[in-house]
């Protein structure tokens, strides 16, 4: 037995030694220091970083740092597109846009200059490969006019175009290199893998290592013609929100993208700062207008009763500080948003009266939502349970139908769900992006809402409106849409970026949630 004790001591000593070794293992003489590396963490939503195919948050965050775009939103002001690589001019009828290459010193990461040919190729590739973001330039003819000028012609007025071009999905790539690596402007394009591993942009960074499952490493682009970034290397890691919180508190990471409001509250000044930005996402209830599918939800009085039964202030509490009421699905910072003070209010007496009118006698209504999804920190399962409890107070009985998001989306897309929670993230900050919710639009089809002459007339008027009148016309259209209660706007959540205390200066806005190149 004495030998057994000796063995135990030996094993324990080995373990202690290992732990000790581990504790001093964070420094590395081979790998250089941590000083010029910025570590950012997010729970990956990444399919690709080929700019013309990516359509998810992580890909977009990376491409923002790697690719320059023809136009930009200066200082994150989403209402005013400004010059990027090009300056622009729109024709009076909004059908023709002229882009003039402005930044003539811009060069790609291999030293090649950015030319009008690269811009034309990039636009045509986006259109031709028929990826997820191809719709951005639907119906737009792209033509090189001369070495400095590119024209974009639309058959219908396209006032949204300046708001579309700053999107990182329309990043300008080095056409010569991409073409050499199976890049084409049609569906035969085979350059995705190449672009994932060898970025071809003119932005402040280039891709050093791409691993869609764990991390993407960026290094400074020595040919970038803008100010040299302080952080020469950016490591974007795939990390759960819980671990992000500990990492930002401990200084292990400098940027965390996915903290919810409760987690954000735990960051005090000694650990870092919270940058709260208005999110471009909308959370809403959808109601199926087909009586056979929607049941009670197809009745306008029932829908309006639901709208009157919701306690919106409590939803704001749930979504956290900085979240906002919505009077339509258009985020409050966009042209065409309906003023917040026109947002629906809770009125239980009104709700009960409307329910009587609808002939609703308390039957259960199936209520679908993605049980595994959180939108800007708002857990949809928690939101659904909150709504169920609130509506119960008006004697509306929701039968909760949770499902994984992929399955839930399938049901919604096939227009077979009577009622549930929907989410929409703006593709570009222009009200025309919300036309899909107007009868006949692709999302309206999911609730079998195919015609409404009043709304169609308002949509026509809005499409023709120009200048300041455009804002008012779209606001009128989307206020009328909310009044039908087919879509019930719930809350505009807040986008939170936690920035560690080692960063003294940074730019964080609704356009690029965190600008790696400007961090100091």
């Amino acid at each position, binding site marked *: *037995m004495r*030998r*057994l004790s000796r*063995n*135990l001591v030996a*094993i324990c000593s080995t*373990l202690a030694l*290992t*732990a000790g*070794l*581990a*504790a*001093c*293992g*964070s*420094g*590395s*003489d*081979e*790998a250089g220091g*941590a000083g010029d*590396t910025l*570590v950012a963490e997010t729970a*990956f939503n990444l*399919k*690709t970083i080929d700019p013309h195919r990516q*359509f998810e948050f992580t890909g977009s965050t990376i491409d923002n740092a790697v690719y320059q775009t023809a136009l930009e939103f200066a200082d994150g002001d989403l209402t005013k597109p400004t010059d990027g690589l090009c300056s622009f001019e729109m024709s009076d009828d909004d059908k023709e846009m002229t882009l003039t290459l402005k930044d003539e010193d811009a060069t790609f990461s291999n030293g090649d200059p950015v030319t009008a040919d690269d811009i034309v190729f990039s636009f045509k590739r986006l259109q031709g490969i*028929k*990826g*997820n*973001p*191809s*719709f951005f330039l639907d119906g737009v003819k792209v033509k090189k006019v001369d070495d400095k000028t590119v024209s974009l012609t639309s058959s219908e007025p396209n006032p949204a175009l300046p708001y579309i071009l700053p999107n990182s999905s329309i990043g300008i790539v080095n056409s010569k290199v991409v073409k050499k690596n199976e890049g084409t402007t049609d569906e035969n394009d085979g350059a*995705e*893998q190449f672009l994932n591993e060898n970025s071809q942009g003119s932005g402040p960074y280039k891709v050093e290592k791409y691993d*869609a*499952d*764990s*991390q993407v490493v960026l290094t400074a682009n020595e040919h970038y013609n803008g100010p040299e970034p302080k952080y020469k290397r950016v*490591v974007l*890691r*795939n*990390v*759960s929100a*819980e*671990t992000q919180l*500990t*990492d930002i*508190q*401990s200084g*292990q990471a400098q940027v965390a993208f996915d903290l919810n409001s409760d987690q954000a509250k735990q960051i005090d000044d000694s650990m870092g700062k919270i940058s709260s930005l208005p999110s471009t996402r909308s959370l809403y209830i959808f109601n199926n207008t087909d009586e056979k599918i929607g049941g009670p939800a197809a009745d306008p009085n029932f829908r309006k009763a639901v709208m009157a039964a919701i306690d919106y202030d409590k939803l704001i509490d749930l979504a956290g500080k900085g979240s906002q009421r919505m009077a339509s699905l258009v985020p409050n910072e966009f042209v065409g948003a309906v003023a917040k003070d026109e947002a629906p209010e809770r009125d239980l007496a009104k709700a009960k009266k409307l329910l009587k009118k609808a002939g609703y006698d308390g039957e259960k209504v199936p209520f679908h939502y993605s049980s*595994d999804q959180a939108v800007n920190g708002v857990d949809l399962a928690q939101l659904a349970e909150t709504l169920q409890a609130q509506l119960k107070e008006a004697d509306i009985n929701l039968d909760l139908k949770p499902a*994984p998001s*992929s*399955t839930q*989306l*399938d049901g919604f*897309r096939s227009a077979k769900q009577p009622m549930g929670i929907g989410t929409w993230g703006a*593709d570009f900050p222009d009200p025309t992006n919300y036309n899909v919710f107007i009868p006949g639009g*692709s999302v309206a089809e999911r609730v079998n809402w195919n015609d409404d002459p009043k709304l169609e007339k308002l949509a026509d008027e809005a499409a023709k409106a120009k200048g300041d009148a455009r804002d008012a016309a779209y606001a009128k259209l989307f206020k009328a849409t909310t009044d039908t209660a087919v879509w019930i706007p719930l809350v505009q959540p807040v986008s939170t970026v936690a920035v560690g205390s080692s960063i003294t200066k940074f730019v964080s806005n609704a356009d690029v949630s965190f600008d790696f190149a400007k961090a100091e």
Partner: protein
Amino acid sequence: MAEAAAAPQHAHVASASGEADAAQRVKPPKLHPLIRFILIRIGISIILIWGVTVVTFLLTNLVPTDPVAAILGDRAAADPEIVAQTREKLGLDQPLLVQYFTYLGNLLQGDLGVSNQTRTPVLASIGQVFPASIELGIGAILISVILGLLLGLLSALKQNSLVDHAIRTLSLIGISAPTFWIATVAYFVFFFKLRVVPGAGRLDPWITPPPKVTGLYTVDSLLAGQMATFSNALGHLVLPSCVLALFTVGLLTRFSRSSVLDIIRLDYVTAAKAKGLPARTVVFKYIFRGALVPIITVVGLAFGSLLSGAVLTETVFAWNGLGQYAYRGATTLDLPVIMGVGLVIGIVYILVNFIVDLIYGFVDPRVRVR
């Protein structure tokens, strides 16, 4: 009847012995029992692997949802033409049986398909993440075996004492505490508060991984002579391995305790003690060795489950292994990934069982004769 029955029996016996002699002369020498045993086990393993391909293929294809929509995303999925083209490209327009045989044919050529989400070959991705899980699994199994066996042995030898009760309580906690919770608390305490281990990930973010040989950072950094990287990788390995090991430690402690208690009561142990052999010899040569055989099964299966069940631990520690890869595949309905990971985990289990069977065969001759 009795006579009639007896006569042929005699005749049979007589003739059988004569035939046996002849057969011994003509038939090739009988296979060695151990080789026969190995061949049978290989055969069974191949059939099982084929079974796994059928099950993973059927299960993933019977999910009532359309992977094309998940692949294309909202915008592109709105265009029926693109949807049809994608279905055709992926072969999803073919009957299920045709799809299965295409899958099997590709599999035999080492092609596990391409991830629908990242367009990366599944085999290459598994090759990337598998070593991470192996490294974590080996760390966890080493800790489990050492602690589990020692604690179990100690608990049995001190049966019904305070030490025994304490160990049994600890093992119960190890088995019943939720891994995700343990992982989060452990990360908070040992990394955030005490700073005795480094943060999440397999290496500090600013360290470049060593040149790939095995994919195990600890081994590769040693091979490359990068001692600082080795120490960093080892440091990152300690906490997740301990957390992952906790359940198995509990399991092994309980199992080895009861196994040792069974052996202690056997006559040969009593005889050994009666002969006056030293306690150390009795414990290690007689009791522990005897108890070891059934424990091999538990260790083998535990290794398989460590590889497949590390999803939560890998998530908390940002450990980019098979578990995280599987989780990502499942949540994005990435069928090639789900099938690939399912197959690999199935093969690991089958291989582990095969090895366990072999060890049994070597250790206990009765097994291979059966």
